[in-house]
């Protein structure tokens, strides 16, 4: 008898088409299956159905038999943690011993005691992803169900993490069911592959516009920033020097990519420019006075862009929060069907929500700066392609500047961007694109 058996499994929400065509799967101990497919094809829904995590409103058809325990690695990292318990507490909740918690954290490279005491909101996206994997391992699962387990990681970390997953499964005999839009994940894990069918929607190009000569839009001079840990009684001590004398210029209509390892200070710099973070010394100037400070000048899209949408309101309402002129004609710009204007954002897939979030952030900008903080990291090639197309069009149409924080140099190439290397809070090299 197999470990996991799905027979004609289907999921539908009241009054809608089934999320995907019926799926039949059988997995034995130690077997591995990869679920491939583009954003919105139902990968996450299928995995949630296996893990028993579908909302009550979903109707499940067909049959599902599981023997043994499931270790589930969810896709939305931040929402999957309790904000009130430390990382250490949340893992020990499953392991039962602090010693084993520390061992498991060391396994994924989070061995500093800082991580035990940290709350989830204090970790980076990649760190959260690794803690999620630890939590799955802690249960001694016979089946590991992983939803985009490496989406927010840079290539080095991704390789390390997949190797860990591989080794853990070999040692414990756990089967793996993994969904990803990156097929090299499946190759690395030696998975069989099941492809789910993609959705297709029409594209509407932007009217192109001539390039305007470049003036400086933004000048950052000698920025420094140190993070402190604050206790209940005023005691503060410096913890991380995030920015160390950073200067950078961004021209109007220019695209700049901040590239560097985790924790280099890329996000901090982006957040300072966006006005979300205060800096210790240095200055940030907007010499051309591109509009008054505020939403028309700079917009930041965060790492998990879909988290910025209220899942209960419609796509149209979400867009109109940012710009009152938003209407259904906008949706084709990010290659979504016009009729979706009335759908609730919670009904869309991660990738589709990311497209809406980026469209919304760009909406109020006239000729300012759009900052994407690792916002493309969790997206499949199709979604990323749609968004890159949209960004290029925006740059052309409105002379918008872009600042991207990423560890994917393909994105930089696709946008013909200037790449700025950042390490340990400093700019280490700034090669010009030929």
């Amino acid at each position, binding site marked *: 008898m197999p470990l996991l058996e799905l027979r004609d499994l289907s999921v539908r929400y009241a009054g809608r088409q089934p999320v995907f065509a019926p799926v039949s799967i059988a997995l034995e101990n130690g077997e591995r299956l990869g679920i491939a497919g583009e954003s919105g094809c139902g990968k996450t829904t299928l995995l949630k159905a296996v893990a028993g*995590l579908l909302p009550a409103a979903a109707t499940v058809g067909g049959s599902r038999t599981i023997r043994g325990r499931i270790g589930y690695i969810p896709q939305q990292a931040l929402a*999957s943690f*309790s*904000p009130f318990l430390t990382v250490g507490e949340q893992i020990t909740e*499953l392991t039962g011993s602090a010693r084993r918690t520390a061992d498991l954290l060391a396994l994924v490279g989070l061995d500093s005691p800082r991580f035990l005491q940290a709350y989830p909101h*204090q970790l980076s996206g990649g760190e959260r992803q690794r803690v999620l994997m630890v939590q799955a391992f802690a249960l001694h699962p016979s089946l590991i169900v992983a939803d985009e387990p490496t989406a927010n990681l840079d290539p080095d970390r991704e390789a390390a993490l997949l190797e860990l997953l591989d080794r853990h499964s070999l040692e414990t005999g756990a089967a793996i069911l993994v969904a990803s839009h990156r097929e090299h994940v499946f190759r690395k894990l030696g998975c069989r592959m099941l492809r789910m069918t993609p959705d297709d929607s029409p594209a509407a190009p932007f009217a192109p516009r001539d390039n305007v000569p470049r003036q400086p839009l933004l000048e950052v001079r000698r920025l420094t920033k140190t993070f402190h*840990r604050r206790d209940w009684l005023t005691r503060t001590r410096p913890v991380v020097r995030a920015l160390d004398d950073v200067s950078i210029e961004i021209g109007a209509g220019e695209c700049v990519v901040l590239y560097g390892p985790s924790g280099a200070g890329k996000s901090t710099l982006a957040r300072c420019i966006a006005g979300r973070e205060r800096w210790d010394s240095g200055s940030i100037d907007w010499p051309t006075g591109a509009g008054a400070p505020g939403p028309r000048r700079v917009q930041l899209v965060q790492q998990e862009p879909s988290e910025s949408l209220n899942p209960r309101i419609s796509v149209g309402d979400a867009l109109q929060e940012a710009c009152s002129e938003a209407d259904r004609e906008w949706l084709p710009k990010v290659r979504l069907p016009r009729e979706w204007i009335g759908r609730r954002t919670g009904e869309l897939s991660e990738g589709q929500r990311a497209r809406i979030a980026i469209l919304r952030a760009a909406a109020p900008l006239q000729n300012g700066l759009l900052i994407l903080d690792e916002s493309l990291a969790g997206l499949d090639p199709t979604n990323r392609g749609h968004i890159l197309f949209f960004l290029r069009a925006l740059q052309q149409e409105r002379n918008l500047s872009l600042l991207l924080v990423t560890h994917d140099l393909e994105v930089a190439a696709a946008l013909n961007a200037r790449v700025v290397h950042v390490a340990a809070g400093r700019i280490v090299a700034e090669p010009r694109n030929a």
Partner: protein
Amino acid sequence: MIFFLWRSLASLAQLLVLSVLLFLFFRVLPGDIYTEQLADPQASRQTVEALREAAGLRNSWPHRYRDWAASCIRGDLGTSLAYGIPVSRLIAPRIQKTLEIAVPALVLAWLLGTGGGLLAARFRWTMTLDPGAAAAAMIPDVIAVSLMLWLAVWAGMRITGAWLPIVGLTFSLLPVVFLHVSQQVRQARELAFVRIAESRGISGARLWLRFILRAAANPLVSLAGLSVAATIGSSFVVEALTGWPGLGPLFLEAVQARDYPIVQTILMLLAAVLALSNLAADLVLYRLDPRIRLPNES
């Protein structure tokens, strides 16, 4: 600590602004306690004007505000124009009486509301109970307490004593607490991290205490802060209807007689209760939620 200081300063500023607004409000209202005496044929215009002068009512309002604020800081809340006794002596026993019914009502409403709301959310009765509670929350206190009085008389029960105002006041807050608790807990059960914890085998008291209740607590703490001032406000109505000698009847009398020192003191007292209970709620939230307490380091 810095948070505490800033938050306290903000509360103080709120109260200051409010006191000025209150003062302006009474300035805008036509007439004062002596207006009616003008209609009395035995009182001459000169006498009334002299009385006004003596009470300091003819000075400009910034002047009066300054006098009032200065005497408040010294601990003198002014003298009732109708009774001629210091306001503080007049209201002190009334405050005690109001607290005698407001404190038990607050405790009862929160105990019953939290218990009921938790049970409703635990056993998924909310679909049947919530509409009833919502309807109960909508009934104005005046009607609910009148109905209760009528029922008590009809059943031949004693309508004197503290029990009737306490029950009336409890029922004015209870449905609101019940609704909030049951809905917050129901929503908390559907949160991603709660569902995931459950799927990982965390159950029973651990799941409820460490995950569900922690997630539901934040808005309830804010509500608890607000409910203190709301209960004292409701108690005015309940006291007036049941004849309980608290602040309520005194307030009504003072308003009708335009005895502004009393009205002003009672309103400021209410505002202070509201500001203080909100301050307390915010401090509890600060302790409870690491997202407020600890900055983002990544």
